[in-house]
């Protein structure tokens, strides 16, 4: 049974529909990607999942049951904009938040120390949030969200504002939580994170679901239209091959866009006839391209 299930969930603010009949399922131990441009309805969806606001239509089921106050102890939430007291010590406020989530002071303290060690910043225990850099505040926000080992973890733009080292650190942590069985709802603008972490995604555009499903399946549904070719010498006449729409010479080699898959084989043969081929790849569409296309198409 899925840990989290949204069934035709609708949210309206006055006349404006913020979320229109979204359906999604998150299994235990799954990271589910929620994508969309700004204002597409991601945060509203997450807030409904959190029980902050109630849907106007449809159902949200947690472990098969509707929302109840007991869920407060099972949910972890990292809002887009930090969400910590700037002038209060890290230890005090995170233990406080842990206690509100049903932990004892001792457990919360132990858990906090574990996470600070894990992020290699034990000295933050006695620091105030305003003394930390933005990225480190983000890390403390993350600690606050996972301190009570939630079953449902909702991460709104969790990696924004972090340097690459910290992104890796947090990504590894998120994967670890996933492997421990946490159901994670994850929103971001960074497609490469989604490709790395998520199995299933939903792309929202103006309150509507425009693309949904397994990332690999989604990609298969989109034609492969790009060929990457790197050769030892120059190759001429690539543009004249039937089915080739355009040729670009880049640092990585030639990037050709093709109208049909068969053209890829013709390109390879043509190149082999003139030079040694070092690299040949028919590229999958990136999620980025799919996103832009999906959002762009429904714009028209």
């Amino acid at each position, binding site marked *: 049974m899925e840990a989290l299930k949204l069934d035709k969930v609708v949210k309206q603010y006055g006349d404006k529909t913020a979320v229109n009949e979204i359906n999604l399922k998150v299994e235990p131990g799954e990271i589910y990607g929620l994508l969309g441009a700004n204002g597409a309805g991601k945060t509203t969806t997450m807030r409904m999942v959190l029980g902050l606001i109630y849907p106007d239509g449809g159902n949200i089921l947690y472990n098969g049951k509707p929302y109840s106050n007991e869920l407060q102890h099972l949910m972890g939430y990292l*809002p887009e904009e930090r*969400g910590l007291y700037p002038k209060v010590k890290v230890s005090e406020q995170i233990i406080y938040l842990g206690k509100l989530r049903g932990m004892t002071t001792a457990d919360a303290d132990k858990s906090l120390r574990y996470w600070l060690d894990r992020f290699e910043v034990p000295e933050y225990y006695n620091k105030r949030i305003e003394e930390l850099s933005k990225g480190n505040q983000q890390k403390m926000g993350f600690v606050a969200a996972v301190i009570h080992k939630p079953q449902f973890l909702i991460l709104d733009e969790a990696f924004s504002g972090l340097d690459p080292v910290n992104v890796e650190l947090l990504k590894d942590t998120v994967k670890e939580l996933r492997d421990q069985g946490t159901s994670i709802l994850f929103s971001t603008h960074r497609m490469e994170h989604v490709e790395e972490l998520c199995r299933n995604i939903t792309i929202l555009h103006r309150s509507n679901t425009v693309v949904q499903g397994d990332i690999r399946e989604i990609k298969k549904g989109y034609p492969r239209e790009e060929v990457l070719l790197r050769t030892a010498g120059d190759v001429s006449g690539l543009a004249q091959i039937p089915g080739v729409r355009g040729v670009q010479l880049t640092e990585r080699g030639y990037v050709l866009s093709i109208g049909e898959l068969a053209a890829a084989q013709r390109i390879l043969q043509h190149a082999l006839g003139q030079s040694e081929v070092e690299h040949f790849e028919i590229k999958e569409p990136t999620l980025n391209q799919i996103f832009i296309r999906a959002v762009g198409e429904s714009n028209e």
Partner: protein
Amino acid sequence: MNKLGTIIGFTFKNKARTKSFTITTLIIVLLITIGMNIPYFIDKFNGEDEAAEAARIGVVADSGIPAAALLLDYTAPEGSDSKVALESYASPEDAALVKGLDEGDIEGYLTFGTAAGGGVPPVTYHSKDGELDQDVQMYLQTALQQVNTQLIAEGKLTPEEVSAMFAPVSIGTEQLSGSAGGADGAAPEETSPINFVIVYVLLILFFMSIMLTGNMIAAEVTAEKSSRIMEILITSASPLTQMFGKVIGVFLVGLMQIGILVATIAANLLLPHNAGVLADFDLDLSQMNYGILVYGLILYILGFFLYALMYAAVGSIVSRTEELGQATMPVMMLGFVNYYIPTFSVAAPDTLLVKIASYVPFTSPLSMLLRIGIGEVAVWEIAVSLVILVVTILFFAWLAAKIYRTGVLMYGKRPSIKEIRKAMKAYKF
């Protein structure tokens, strides 16, 4: 309930530790201490002045002038402040007098003109600067007046009769028993000065405390909202629990502050040198109406909660701290009305305005305090006022919780009342 305790504890700890709270409290403690010791210091300085500079005034007259002899014999009645020492000299050229005047030991001297009738002849005061100190003038005037009477009444009245003439007339006061308020079954109020003082002190203390703590609550809610920690809090504990946790936490901070201030007042009263000050002002702690302290505490608690809830609701609507001042203005206005009605009515605590105000929930906490303290009020009146207040608080708790629940998730510009109502329906709970 466990969460409520956690929130109360966290709020109390953080608020009591803020710099603004510590500094405000210290300043008030300092002001109270200074204020309460001022009478003592004034006394002290005055005392020194007099001791050091008992003005020496020469009286230049032939022994033949009876007024001069009587003046030299004059002694000020007991309890009189000014000290003037009169010394007799034969003539203005007397060596000792000239020397004294030159060195400033002697302020000046008096000469007598020719007597026109039976009384004191015209007196002239001679001094270097030509000025007569006001205290000295008062003293001389009283003394000469008495001498005048003595001269005129000489032989007609006995010395005892003369001195009886100058004895101060005393006016005693006594309240009629069994009149007015007694008919309502209330104990006749003995309005001694100590109760005026207590009512004044409580009015100021409560008004200040309610305003300070109210603003504290509103600022806290807005800060939590703008730092978005609110979203985490709301998913951890119900908004009602949170709002009450915060209100009670800040209430304890306010109570602690009042405790500190009362302790300061008490400590100052107990200082040995201040023991006389109370007596000087004719204040007697034993005359205090202790009921007012008990009712005062009840009214303070209720008043605090009513205003705290309004502040919490207002704080939840505003998204940015900068907008808070403007948004809390209406609540603050109510607070001022609550304070000024009784403050300006201390002299007349039984006016219709105060009576009405003592039933209106927003003004009843302090107006009722005034009536209990120095006005006339029946027990049933207090009960009715308290019931109205409690019912209003319950209604506001419900309303504030609803606004709070809605407001904390509304960002952007300050919403209009219409928008809040619409949103409250959308966020139904």
